């Protein structure tokens, strides 16, 4: 966007020089130049040098944010200024901290010498390029926030339904098939995992993961899940009754 804006004033600048060349009278070129300059100033007011009021050639920006042509700023700092100060706000200007602006178009490798001042302008300071931005880490795309989502995330997630079904299958697969001791651990983790259980939990998770992955291949249906839940309830009820009798 800004490149396009900076590029458009160039034709008006050409028109400006043409009108200057065409005019032979003293007053006529002034009038034409004014009209051309008017349109030019409207288009490119933001990219004009603060010293020559023209489109910036070899633009540089100071730390205080003011834009200059590099030849204009160099002439001010090295020929006319009594101190290294910004021509606009008198802030300290350090040449090592000037930021050049690179727009579209070729960089002028040979800077123009100022005939009026009789001083050769060196090349403008180069930009300070920071290091490359760190690349995104793909392994962190699916962080394990809780065991249930871990189960859902482990198989390749092709769609929402598949993931949801895998989640439900995991629920169905966990309770009825795994041992009584194993299914007790999720509740412990739900209320805060104890220090003594992580190893056992990991082992149970590994076995559960393998089974959960294989379950969808057996023509999964909701009715089977409901049946499994019923069996789970019966088993739990029987175990509770047996425990009560034993106690």
């Amino acid at each position, binding site marked *: 966007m800004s490149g396009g804006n900076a590029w458009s004033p160039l034709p008006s600048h050409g028109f400006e020089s043409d009108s*200057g060349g065409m005019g032979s009278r*003293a*007053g006529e070129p*002034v009038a034409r*130049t*004014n009209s051309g*300059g*008017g349109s030019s*100033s409207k288009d490119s*007011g*933001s*990219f*004009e040098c*603060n*010293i*020559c*009021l*023209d489109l910036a050639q070899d633009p540089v920006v100071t730390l205080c*944010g*003011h*834009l200059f042509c590099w030849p*204009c700023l160099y*002439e*001010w700092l090295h*020929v*006319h200024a009594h101190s290294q100060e910004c*021509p*606009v*706000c*008198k802030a300290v200007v350090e040449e090592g901290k000037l930021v050049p602006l690179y727009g579209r178009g070729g960089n002028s490798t040979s800077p123009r010498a*100022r*005939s*009026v*001042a009789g001083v050769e302008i060196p090349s403008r300071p180069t930009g300070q390029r920071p290091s490359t931005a760190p690349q995104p880490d793909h392994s962190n795309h699916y962080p394990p926030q809780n065991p249930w989502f871990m189960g859902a995330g482990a198989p390749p997630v092709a769609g*929402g339904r598949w*993931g*949801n079904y895998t989640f*439900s299958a995991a*629920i169905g697969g966990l*309770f009825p098939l795994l*041992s*009584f*001791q194993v*299914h*007790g651990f999720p*509740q412990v983790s739900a209320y805060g995992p104890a220090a003594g259980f992580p190893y056992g939990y990991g082992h149970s998770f590994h076995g559960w993961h393998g089974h959960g992955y294989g379950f969808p291949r057996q023509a999964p249906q909701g009715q089977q*899940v*409901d049946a499994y*839940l019923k069996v*789970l*309830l019966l088993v*739990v*009820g029987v*175990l*509770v009754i*047996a*425990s*009560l009798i*034993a*106690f």
Partner: protein
Amino acid sequence: METMAKYNRSNPAVKRILQEVKEMQSNPSPDFMALPLEEDIFEWQFAILGPRDSEFEGGIYHGRIQLPSDYPFKPPSFMLLTPSGRFEIQKKICLSISNYHPEHWQPSWSVRTALVALIAFMPTNPGGALGSLDYKKEDRRALGIKSREAPPKFGSPERQKLIDEIHEQMLSKAPPVPQTLPNVPNEESNELPASDPSGEHADKVDEGDNTSGSVSDSSSGLPVPESESGVTENTGETSAVEVANHHVPEASHRENIPRVSSSHQNPAVAIQKPNHDRLLTLAAFGLTLAIMALVIKKFLKINGLGGFIEGKF
């Protein structure tokens, strides 16, 4: 030589002056007007209105500006042509914006900012600065009223024509004359200039000493109006504002990303709820029973390991 310099577009001073002429013609100000001579673009004629709420209000004061050959790296010189009671006529005035103090000049200043500063300096205390006068308020007001009647006579016919043109345009902009009785200004104005030339040398010596004092005064007072006017008219500030405006959309764009991701997560949660309400209910019931079983299992552990193993199988 200077006439040829006018057509020398490679001269940065000429380019700069032409840019200023375009800017002042495209954005005219109600408080002042300035135009260069056709024969010499480094010679300007200007006219300013007296500042409001002061004894100079309603007055039209003409002057002349001479730009240096290495403008804008060197300051111009200013000379007033209309009697004002504040500045001497046909004598270069000493201000921080004029060539008396090139160390205070800023290349980002222009004829426009200089005229704004000149208007702001009129009501200030001259402090004995070179080219300054200290008339009474009544006399200044009378001179201001008189300044509207006719422009001053100065220079070549072409310059006089330009002065007349500027005067007519300033009359159309000027506010109505404040009502004040004139107090015989002719005699006083005639007397004071007569006394000045007689003591010119002595005045110069005295003013030289005072000038060093006035330098600190004017330099301390000047930066406030100059920096303000310079900053307000500076395109750099406009660029900064646009940069700030550009940053806001970027921030909102960054905010949109987490919104998208959060909205992406919500449908997944919503999809899960209606399909598994029954399953969740049953699971919760089962969990409750499992907790009870856990409590019982702890008691079994206390009894013995054999019982625990048998219970497991």
